[in-house]
Structures are given as structure tokens and as C-alpha cells.
């Protein structure tokens, strides 16, 4: 009924103009691309990773959990290296609970494959790294990764 009436009374084309539709879609796409912020660990510590030409890519990022060690970003907190788990400073005693809390969040079959990536500033002394490694051993998280950059010093 309505259509009949419409077409009879008007001489304009029956369909809306769609030529600008792609532009609108693209505009939306860009808007979302720019507006989306991926959830990331806010680094509280400054980390400049050491160079290692043998650096390998970690294939499956869902298996990786991070531990950060480095001097705090906020200079008020001094320049001694601190430990960061998730989004907060932590002490060495928090490492084991952290691992034990992260593990159940993974599917059972993958829990044994968990990789702990140590993101450590290159100026850090080994004592702290060793302490963390001991804690990881106790938590039986034995696969670790020393985060590094490939560098370009040697072929």
C-alpha cells in the first residue's frame, strides 16, 4: 500500500543512495582502531633488556607470564631495582603465590607448559634474579625466558 502510494506520488529513485556507505564504514573502522587500547601491563619499572644475538621468538603468548625487575620509573622511589608482578610492586615472597594464582587460569593441559618471562633491566645484579629463579623452582615453574633484544653487534 505504502509503496504504491510512494512511487506514484514521487518521481525520485526508490532506494537510498549507498555510495557513501563505505566511507562511513571506514570512518567507523578507523574510529575503533584509534580508540581501542589493548590491555597491557603498565610498567612501573624501567627495563632496557640486554642484547643477545641468539634471541628466539616465543611462539605462544598465551603461555607466557611476566616478571619485571628494574629500577622504578618514579624517581621518588629511588634507583634500586624492584620487582613488579601484574600492575604492582611486589616482594620476593609474592612470586610463588603469583605463579600459583596464574596457573589455574590456564587450561589444564597447558599448565605444565607455562613459560615465565623474566624482563630484567641489564644493570640489575644477579642476586635478585637468582632469588626469583629459586622461587620459581619452588613453584615448579621451570620454563623460563630471559627477555632480550637481538642486537646487531655480531653476525
Amino acid at each position, binding site marked *: 500500500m505504502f509503496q504504491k502510494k510512494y512511487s506514484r506520488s514521487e518521481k525520485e529513485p526508490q532506494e537510498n543512495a549507498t555510495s557513501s556507505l563505505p566511507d562511513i564504514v*571506514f570512518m567507523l573502522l578507523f574510529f575503533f582502531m584509534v580508540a581501542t587500547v589493548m590491555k597491557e601491563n603498565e610498567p612501573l619499572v624501567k627495563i632496557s633488556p640486554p642484547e643477545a644475538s641468539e634471541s628466539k621468538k616465543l611462539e605462544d603468548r598465551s603461555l607466557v607470564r611476566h616478571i619485571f625487575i628494574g629500577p622504578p620509573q618514579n624517581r621518588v622511589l629511588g634507583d634500586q631495582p624492584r620487582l613488579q608482578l601484574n600492575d604492582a610492586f611486589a616482594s620476593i615472597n609474592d612470586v610463588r603465590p603469583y605463579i600459583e594464582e596464574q596457573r589455574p587460569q590456564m587450561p589444564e593441559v597447558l599448565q605444565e607448559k607455562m613459560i615465565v618471562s623474566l624482563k*630484567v633491566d641489564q644493570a640489575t645484579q644477579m642476586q635478585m634474579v637468582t632469588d626469583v629463579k629459586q622461587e620459581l623452582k619452588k613453584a615448579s615453574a621451570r620454563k623460563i625466558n630471559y627477555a632480550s633484544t637481538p642486537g646487531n653487534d655480531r653476525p
Partner: protein
Amino acid sequence: MADIAFLLLVFFLVTTTVDTELGLMRLLPFGEDSGVVHERNVLEVLVNADNELLVEDQKITIEELRQLAKTFIQNAEDRADLPLRVEKDIPLLGPIMVSKQVISLQNHGRTSYKTYVAVQNELAAAYHELRDDLSKRYFNQSYDALVSSKAKAKVAAIRAVYPQRISEAEPYTQ
């Protein structure tokens, strides 16, 4: 308009990098020492508090480490002070001499992380170069090419000849 949009899209696609995780993967040992290893089979690498490198109590530079580790791992001349070699029958390679090498890496609490990773890197490079040589000799392909082409059996065979055994010993304190 659509062309400009595509251009922008491609530009963003190219410039956006998902930061990839890079690093040296290691497996921590179990809590206590498992079994006794003969002294000749162990290369003791020690990094002291002043970031100096001592291999079997001899001070060396980090540049020398790679070659030294390669000599140790291979023991091509069958020296009595280097690891024992036994003949193993490895699929795809046939009978081949495999050494019972272990590299023990020890550090001090005041060793810098940078030096520690540099040493780890040199040791990894030593294994990598040996594997590469072997891969070229038997399969006419670099080891990296084997890994990236997912030739799992060949990669496993090469790893069986040169298994990466870097033991991270407890640090010493003095």
C-alpha cells in the same frame, strides 16, 4: 575517498607492530642435584662479582668463550680431559659420536645481568653453530632453515647429537 581510506588502512597495518617477545629460553633444574657427573664431562663457567669470566679456573674474555665451548662440546680429537664420547645410532644420521657434555654456569650475586645474559648467549651460540655445521654436512641446509621448514625428524636428530645442556648452578657467595 575509498582509495584514501584503503591507503590509510594499509599505512596503519604496516606501521603497527605487535611487540614480539624475544629471549633466551632455559629450563631450570630440579631442586637437588640429580646424579653425579664425571669431571671431564663438565665445563665449569663462572662469572664473578667483577663480571670476569673464568672457565675451568682460567680467566678468559667473552669473545673466546664460544670457540672454547665448541671445542669442549665436540671433543673432536678425543682428548682425555674433554667429555667422553660414545657412538650412538641416531635415525637419519646413522652411527655418530656423541659427547656427554654438560656446561655448568655459575655466577656471583653481584654479577651484572647484562654479563650473565651475554655469557648465556655465547653458550647458546656455540651449540647453534655446531648444529648448523652438522645440518649443512648431512642435510645441505642450515639449521635455521630446518627449523623453519618444520622438518621435525631432522631437527630432532641434530639436537640429539648436540643437546643443549646448560646447567644453571646455585650461585656462590663469598
